């Protein structure tokens, strides 16, 4: 088809070029701005920062890479494989029609640390660039609102830089030396004179210790009630009012905060504020060994720990595959992985819809029914992985252990009925009967409910163009009519051989997102049903290669592993560097968190809406703060 196109049709033609062809084309087009990334195990192109915006624009408009999946910084300081110390921004761009990534990189030296902002090209870069500014201190020229996003304004230093040490700093990487040398132990608290996790810069000005973290935030908002009264179209007098919501508001799904400017009841401006659960996942992840980090990924999106595990092991396995001694997971391991992930997706959507109902005012009654079903799925997780919520189940090259023959012992004591049952029977019954029944019930009571419909149809609208431009992912993207599901767009694991459809709704409002979740659960059940015979058939096969050392070595290079998690595209960018041959710890470990990036269009979606809809719109995005703030 490509060949048959005449030259006039040049423009659409370029949109079908493969990644390698795209790169070749780029080099032709911008000969002095593009060079191949030739470092061992790296891919993509390095773009001259002067030309970055121009190239990005071309990549997006002409080559059709319309979706900026991830933009993140790396600090190459004193790293052997690179000639000079520098900071690097890495952009992963995709086509929403599917396919692999075109990776672009831009470099800057550590002192000036300045790059052009790509927000004019992809709005989705907004929060991600703010994060890079906050944690790495890269200034983005042309960014509309370059403030700290995870730490507070006024914090000293940029903590993800390699030369920034936390107060409890011990060693560069784990495993640390003995915790009990000579019969003594140092508690972390002893590392600072203050006996707690604090460290102040030497230029601490004791005269001015005021909290300035909110000053900039309220700039342009005007504090409190604006005394200039306004007459709206109907002749009613309204006040401008700034309302602060959160971070402990009960319906922000955690510790999330919004500053809202209201004209009467209408939202004129909304600014999300986050970081209240920023627990330094990435910094800790760079100290951890690769294996050590798996339980930490559980705690990202703590509703769907299995999905988080999956993305991470995929990313590291991609790197491991570059080496010699790598054995891919067995077929049974893949089947079990998909089984767990799809169950997790159901848990996630049940939870999301349930709490969205809370936000709409159906306080806690629907949730109780969904949690009931969730508990049963968690029973199965507990029997298999050993823990209800934080499963820590997947390993490189497989999973931690096989599904047990019978479910007992560690099970919940309350529910005597499940304490000793055949686990396959339990699973079969759950997949064939219980879960479909719950979904049908949910569908019956909610889908045609008048209240749900009037509250949600047409509210929280986002157009497909904006959804793509703002890097929305998951149900938020598919609810706007973009059929982009990574399980289809860039298939992984055994998804290619499974028969399922991408749930997609064109309307772009809250109701559409609800329908997407509902249908996605149905599709998951469809997948699960196909897995049952595969589980029977592979019985007895090993589920992991079992000789994974405590700190396995990973060959040099970079990799980006992404999965379709319940909340959207979950990506892990892992760099193995810092050693000559192979490493035991990630040099850079970044999580492309769907909950975080899906908040970028929140202000847009709320604008012009009513104040009562804010919590519902937020609920329809479905965020979890462990992942938003990391």
């Amino acid at each position, binding site marked *: 088809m490509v060949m048959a196109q005449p030259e006039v049709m040049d423009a659409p033609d370029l949109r079908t070029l493969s990644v390698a062809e795209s790169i070749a084309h780029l080099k032709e087009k911008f000969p002095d701005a593009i060079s191949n990334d030739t470092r061992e195990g790296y891919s993509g192109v390095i773009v001259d920062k002067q030309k970055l915006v121009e190239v990005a624009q071309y990549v997006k408009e002409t080559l059709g890479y319309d979706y900026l999946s991830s933009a993140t910084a790396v600090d190459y300081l004193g790293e052997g494989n690179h000639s000079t110390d520098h900071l690097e921004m890495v952009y992963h761009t995709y086509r929403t029609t599917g396919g692999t990534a075109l990776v672009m990189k831009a470099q800057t030296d550590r002192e000036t640390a300045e790059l052009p902002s790509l927000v004019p090209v992809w709005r989705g870069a907004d929060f991600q660039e703010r994060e890079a500014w906050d944690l790495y201190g890269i200034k983005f020229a042309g960014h509309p609102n370059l403030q700290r996003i995870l*730490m507070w304004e006024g914090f000293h230093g940029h903590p993800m830089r390699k030369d920034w040490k936390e107060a409890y700093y011990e060693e560069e990487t784990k495993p640390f030396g003995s915790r009990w040398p*000579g019969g003594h132990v140092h508690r*972390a*608290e002893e590392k600072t004179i203050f006996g707690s996790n604090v460290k102040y810069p030497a230029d601490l000005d004791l005269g001015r210790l005021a909290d300035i973290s909110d000053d900039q935030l309220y700039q342009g908002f005007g504090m409190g009630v604006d005394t200039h009264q306004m007459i709206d179209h109907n002749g009613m007098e309204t006040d401008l009012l700034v309302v602060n919501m959160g971070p402990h508001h009960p319906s922000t799904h955690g510790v999330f905060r919004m500053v809202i400017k209201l004209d009467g009841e209408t939202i004129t401006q909304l600014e999300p504020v986050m970081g209240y659960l920023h627990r330094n996942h990435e910094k800790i992840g760079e100290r951890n060994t690769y294996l050590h980090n798996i339980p930490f990924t559980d705690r990202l999106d703590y509703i769907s720990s299995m999905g988080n595990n999956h993305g991470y092991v995929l990313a590291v396995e991609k790197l491991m595959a570059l080496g010699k001694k790598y054995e891919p997971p067995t077929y049974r391991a893949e089947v079990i992985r998909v089984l767990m992930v799809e169950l997790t997706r159901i848990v996630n959507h049940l939870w999301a819809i349930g709490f969205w109902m809370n936000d709409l005012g159906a306080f806690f009654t629907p949730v109780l029914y969904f949690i009931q079903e969730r508990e049963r799925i968690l029973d199965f997780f507990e029997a298999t992985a050993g823990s209800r919520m934080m499963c820590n189940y997947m390993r490189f090259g497989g999973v931690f252990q096989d599904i047990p023959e019978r479910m007992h012992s560690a099970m919940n004591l309350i529910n005597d009925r499940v304490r000793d049952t055949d686990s396959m029977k339990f699973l079969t019954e759950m997949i064939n009967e219980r879960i479909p029944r719950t979904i049908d019930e949910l569908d019956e009571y909610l889908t045609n409910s008048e209240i749900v419909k009037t509250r949600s149809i047409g509210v929280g609208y986002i157009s497909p163009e904006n959804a793509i431009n703002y890097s929305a992912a998951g149900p938020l993207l598919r609810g706007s009519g973009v059929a982009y599901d990574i399980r289809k767009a860039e298939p992984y694991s055994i998804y290619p051989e499974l028969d399922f459809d991408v749930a997609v709704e064109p309307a772009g409002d809250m109701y559409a997102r609800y329908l997407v979740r509902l249908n996605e659960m149905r599709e998951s059940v469809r997948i699960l049903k196909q897995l049952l015979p595969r589980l029977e058939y592979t019985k007895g096969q090993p589920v992991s290669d079992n000789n994974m050392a405590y700190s396995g070595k990973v060959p040099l290079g970079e990799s980006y592993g992404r999965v379709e998690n319940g909340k959207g595209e979950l990506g892990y960018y892992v760099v193995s560097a810092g050693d000559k041959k192979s490493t035991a710890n990630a040099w850079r470990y970044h999580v492309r968190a769907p909950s975080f990036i899906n908040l970028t269009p929140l202000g847009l979606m709320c604008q012009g809406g009513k104040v009562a809809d804010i919590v519902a719109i937020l609920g329809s995005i479905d965020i979890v703060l462990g992942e938003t703030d990391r």
Partner: protein
Amino acid sequence: MDLSLQQLNTTEFPIPTDLQDNVAITSLSKIYNWGRRNSMWPMLFGLACCAIEMIATASSRFDFSRFGMEVMRATPRQADLMIVSGTVTKKMVVPIVRLYNQMPEPKYVLAMGACASGGGPFKEGYNVVSGIDTYLPVDVYVPGCPPTPQALLYGLIALQRKIDGQSLAAVDDIPWYGVGAADPTPVPILGPDIIDPRQMDMIRRQAEEAAKKGSASIGVRTLPAIKAAPVAVPAKVAKPAAAAPAKVAAATPEDDKRAAALARKAARAAKQGTAPAAGDAPVAVEEAPAEVAAPTPVAPAAAVELPSSGKPWEEAEDIREQRKAAALARKAQRAAKRDSSGG
């Protein structure tokens, strides 16, 4: 929840047989506590992963309304119990302390999970507070990551038992039965790093010292390498102890350490030029232990080296000491008041 008449009846006072099914005689504390323990309203807010298990505890399978706790209140002003369910970050601890201050007394805090109890898996992170008890008094700790709903229920039952043990008669043991309002917990400040106002003095001192030495940052120190011989550290600090009270001479190792600590404290006091401040209570000085009140002169040179002796909590002891003194003072005041009104 059910308290049968037999259980309620706590006196020897004979009740006529025909009234025994209808009348019970009990102490005020018991009935009061019974009411309180069975209507513990937790505050409706979740911090992190542990909050999900808290929600699970509240819902279908575990259902803590069986214990009178289902009324989760979104406003601190109606809550009795703060369940700190997750990682406390520096950014979040500010609102948490404010919320705690807004809760009416009697109020309780339950630290749920490893993070809230002591920092948990994320303890080393630069934005993580090492446990909520560095700012708020905690009544019950529930271990786990996350604690299972059963564990949380157990913790809540433990809290109920604690309430059972409180008595209206022993007003001095329970802060909120005392006279007047309690002092609010000082709200931390988000400066270059989080600043605990209670440590202001110490921060100032350290800043001055760092300025003199020209070091890059304040507060971090290199710990002495631990040698195989366990005596190495105590031995070094034992020296200034020579000037301390006589009982050191007959030292068992424990005494030795204690004496050393006292000496160090005295040295610090000498360095500041004052005895540890006794807060707002002038009475406290008399009540404070005699050994502390008499500072032993120690060469300032030794004092400067002290921070590296591996006992940072000694500093925090100042604060604890102050608080204890203030409490004693209040107690004395109350006693005096009672005496005067009673006599």
